[in-house]
């Protein structure tokens, strides 16, 4: 089972991260602020992926299909509907993603394990093919650029084009959604997901429709990935074919595995490390994806609980109450 931290502990972390999040941009260069924005967006993408992998035990190689649908929908509606507001575009985008999640999820309903992994990859390829071929709408290989609408709150006019302003908007919205995801893992539905993973047969025999529970979770994670995708487009004021590619699905797998699937924090950590590492390595060498691949294999072989697992066991050692948590999710 997932290592569930106490509420107080999590709240403490939450407040700490929030303060850091608010204060951090004050002292750093614009470039760093943009990087932080990217981290927050990818943190949500990774958290949504881990709800599938870490909580439900469903390995998907196609999570970018929803990220991409979110990214493209925002770009398409902003290009075609004049006067559409910032939040209007985001709303339409997540609605479209939810519908896409439902359509794909209904076909995958009866599958889990290896066939599920294979099918998600195939569906991602389908979405990618649509995005490349449907040139008139998606711009094909050229991608789509947008003009970012400002946010008018009545009492304040937010210039979303400003990197720092956009950062705070992202922190507020995506940050609260990530917090909700954490709460979700404690709700009846979140617990149902965990229990289905642990003993699906018994869940059926105490009255749960486990296919429905899988579908609901799948649609929900699609919705979250779509939201992350829409902010990705808004952040870069551009979307390209890479947003919906299998490479993007690969990135989220790498982030989550590096960060660790065994805790809620793991994927967030993974997103931070991946993006900073990418930023750092790509300055030094063009071969940074190769290095990422080596790190990935190393983690799978030697650190199956990821960085968050490492930190957990290190912390426990420090506090002198080292004991093996037999509840490590992967080792069932």
């Amino acid at each position, binding site marked *: 089972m997932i290592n569930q931290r106490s509420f107080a502990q999590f709240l403490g972390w939450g407040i700490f991260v929030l303060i850091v999040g608010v204060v951090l941009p004050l002292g750093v260069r614009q470039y760093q602020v943009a990087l932080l924005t990217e981290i927050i967006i990818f943190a949500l993408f990774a958290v949504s992926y881990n709800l599938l992998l870490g909580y439900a035990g469903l390995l998907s190689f196609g999570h970018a299909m929803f990220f991409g649908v979110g990214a493209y929908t925002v770009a398409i509606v902003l290009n075609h509907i004049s006067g559409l507001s910032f939040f209007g575009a985001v709303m339409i985008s997540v609605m479209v993603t939810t519908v896409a999640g439902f359509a794909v999820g209904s076909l995958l309903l009866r599958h889990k394990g*290896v066939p599920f992994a294979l*099918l998600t990859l195939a569906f991602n390829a389908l979405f990618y093919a649509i995005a490349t071929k449907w040139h008139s709408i998606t711009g094909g290989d050229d991608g789509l650029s947008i003009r970012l609408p400002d946010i008018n709150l009545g009492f304040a006019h937010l210039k979303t084009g400003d990197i720092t302003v956009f950062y705070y908007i992202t922190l507020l919205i995506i940050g609260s959604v990530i917090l909700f995801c954490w709460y979700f893992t404690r709700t009846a539905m979140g617990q149902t997901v965990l229990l289905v993973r642990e003993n699906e047969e018994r869940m059926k025999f105490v009255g749960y429709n486990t296919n429905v529970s899988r579908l609901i979770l799948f649609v929900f994670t699609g919705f979250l990935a779509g939201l992350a995708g829409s902010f990705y487009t808004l952040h870069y004021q551009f979307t390209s074919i890479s947003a919906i590619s299998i490479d993007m699905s690969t990135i989220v797998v790498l982030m989550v595995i590096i960060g660790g699937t065994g805790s809620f924090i793991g994927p967030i950590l993974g997103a931070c490390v991946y993006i900073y590492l990418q930023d750092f390595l790509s300055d030094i060498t063009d071969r940074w994806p*190769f290095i990422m691949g080596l790190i990935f*294999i190393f983690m*799978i*072989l030697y650190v199956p609980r990821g960085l968050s697992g490492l930190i957990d066991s290190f912390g426990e050692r420090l506090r002198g109450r080292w004991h093996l948590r037999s509840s490590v999710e*992967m080792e069932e």
Partner: protein
Amino acid sequence: MSDIPVFFLHGLVYAGLLFLISSGLTLVFGMMNVLNLAHAAFYMLGAYFSYSLLNATGNFWLSLIVCPLLLFFIGAAVERFLLRRVHVYGHVQELLITFGVAYIITESVKWIWGNYPLGVNLGGFLSGSVNLFGLFYPIYRLFMFFCAILISLIMATVLYKTRIGIIVRASVDDSEMVNTLGINVPLVFTGVFGFGAALSGFAGVIAGPLLTTYPGMAAEILVDAFVVIVIGGMGSLVGALVASLMIGELQSFGALLFPKLSLALMYMLMAAVLIIKPSGLFGEEQ
């Protein structure tokens, strides 16, 4: 109208290629319950090894033998040193490790050969055309098709007529049972995994001169091979054969009749199979 036989033959050629890849994939899955995401990366390596060997020696026949052999050892090493280590952790870790291998192979290929398409030039009679009942058809495509048939026949003979074939088929049905018979199942696994890689590498060698050799070729054919084994039924060789023919012809005629929809057709077929028979045409119901 004279297009129809040409497109039919094109479809057969692609089906042959797909079968070479998907048969190894489905055999490994049926036996080890591992979906090898690096399978198509082995195919790509076959194409690139062949490209380099051709540049060095100019002998295509040599690469037809050497490259699959190399891939056999690479595949066996992946099984022995990576896959087996994570086996105890379950399917998720197994899938992830093959995923990591695929990723590293793709990045290595970009590193060594560059991130752009390479052309493979074949000299000799293979690059010509032949008159088939009044229809001029490239010899190379026919050659590919006959290679696929030849390999399939050899594979069928080995699987159904030899002792090792019986062991492999029995392992597909029930590997625990075979284990209790005193057969070294891990060794059989390594062998079959390596054999699957070699098969995939062979497909890469013969695909190289026809299709472009580039770092995206693995992902491209992997998805087609996945669709094949979903439609055919995971673990079923007969299913892989039938579905390869379906997909090969569908893509070929799709390109002729509905050029805009040709890609979607394949997925529509897959979705239809998923709705009507989720375990695939020849798959066993769970």
